[in-house]
């Protein structure tokens, strides 16, 4: 065991950091984009009914193909991996933001309008807070997915834990595969827990108890 870490320790540490960096930056960027898009789409439900299925078809393109195509255009730079991961991470958050906003009961919006709130105040004081649990579920899903998708970045030689996995698979060295897979799995669980914690702190008590 100690022999393993002596050999791969530094490399593994770097791979974890790279992997984490890809995941966090792309999910963060995706969250920002998805929130804006989700809000805009929720204001135009007719457009959304047409657009959401299109985006959802796009989502079914395998990640490998997409990273490969981007690789052709952008080259072997971290930007390629970041862009591909971020685009994939957008959809679950977008879908949940949209669904969460549409799911806000009409009575709350009517009460808000009746109190004299404008559209922007209704969005920030009522709709977004009430959609928050759903939005968080989307962010969580995206994060967990992105951790596993980021394994693919090694395919185009951009590092991350995928490097261990691929090298392990191609040289029939299961130790290396495990060395890549276990931290990736732990990372997914850990980030998921962090998001749960953030959600708990950001959601008012009044919403937590009604949630089952």
């Amino acid at each position, binding site marked *: 065991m100690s022999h393993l870490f002596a050999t791969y320790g530094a490399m593994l540490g770097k791979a974890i950091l790279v992997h984490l960096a890809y995941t966090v930056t792309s999910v963060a960027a995706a969250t920002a984009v998805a929130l804006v898009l989700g809000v805009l789409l929720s204001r135009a439900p007719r457009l959304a009914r047409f657009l959401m299925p299109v985006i959802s078809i796009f989502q079914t393109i395998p990640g490998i193909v997409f990273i490969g195509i981007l690789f052709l255009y952008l080259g072997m730079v971290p930007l390629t991996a970041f862009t591909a991961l971020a685009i994939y991470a957008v959809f679950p958050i977008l879908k949940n933001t949209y669904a969460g906003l549409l799911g806000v009961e009409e*009575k*709350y919006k*009517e*009460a*808000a*309008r*009746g*109190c*004299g*709130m*404008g559209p922007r*105040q209704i969005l920030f*004081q*009522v709709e977004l*807070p*009430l959609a*928050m649990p759903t939005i968080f579920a989307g962010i969580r899903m995206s994060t967990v997915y992105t951790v596993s998708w980021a394994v693919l970045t090694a395919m185009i030689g951009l590092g991350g834990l995928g490097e261990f996995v691929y090298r392990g698979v191609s040289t029939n060295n299961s130790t290396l595969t495990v060395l890549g897979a276990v931290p990736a799995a732990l990372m997914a669980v850990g980030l998921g827990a962090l998001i749960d914690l953030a959600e708990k702190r950001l959601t*008012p*008590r*009044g*919403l937590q*108890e*009604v949630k089952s």
Partner: protein
Amino acid sequence: MIEYRHVCKNYGGRAIVRDLSFAIEDGQFAVLIGPSGCGKTTTLKMLNRLIQSDDGEILLDGKNVAEINAEQLRTHIGYVIQQIGLFPNMTVEQNITVVPRLLKWDKARCRARAQELLRLVDMDWDTYAKKYPNELSGGQQQRIGVLRALAAEPPVILMDEPFGALDPITRDALQDEVKNLQRRLHKTIIFVTHDMNEAIKMADVILFMSDGELLQQASPEEMLRAPANDTVREFMGKHVARGAAGRDDIPCGEIMRKNVAHVSESWKMLECVQLMSSREIDSLVVTDDDGAYRGVVTIEGIRAHGRPGESVRQLLEEAPTVYTGTLAREAFEKLEQSGARYLIVLDGARHPAGIITRTSMSKALAYMVWGGDAV
């Protein structure tokens, strides 16, 4: 002063409100009533422009509401909806101060206002201010809903079937509270309901709508006595079925509520308090050992002077009484003159037989006009 002038509203070619004109004086409690689909809610919502009228004008203190910025208008008109609609992400205090905060009141003023309002409905600040709506009962939630509408001191408040979702006991209590608040604060309230009993109890003036038109605008008494046409009569009749209309010789025995909680004067105070709390009432009728009426004991009386372990004999209070044979008409006058909340009805042997509350009296009033079930 609120004035509707030839107001119309169509939905997809169907006229919901047609050529509606009426006026409501300041400080009046106006109830819009009519069968469902008669346009009463649409009429209400056109005032704060949640629905835009198609034609005609609505004047609020002489100003056409169409010319006032909608958001500004709504911060000056209180609004209570049926489904309560407290914001679940906000505490009681935050919910109450929504409109003051929109109006940019400073923090101290918001808090002072919230404290003042909670006192108004006897809800303790320390207990409730930081609670969320889902931690309150339905009745408490709608109390907060009413306070939210009152918060920025609007002269006019709109209520769209505010008590429809509440159980009968809570509804009765809230009706009393809102009516009291309205009298005390001198607000103009427009209140939509389809419940005639509620309308009779609350209204200074009832506006009866049917099929988008105003059929009659009159005080409850006048509407009961002289409904404008068959539609009005029929609608009221649905709530208190048709029968021997016009009788005015009904004795109290027929309209009283039986099943009155009574105790012997040898009962201990603690037992009385337990009985009151288990039946959710605030007073008990007290008799002597032979069952003859002696007086009443109230929770306030016990709280003020009571000592545990002693019998309630020391705390008896007077209450106005009538006999089962007394005419309901006379009982009505007695109830009005004494200002009491209820009358105790005694039988020939002076044993308590029932009580008459203001609610049972309003039902009886309807009974005298149309007959049917009085109690």
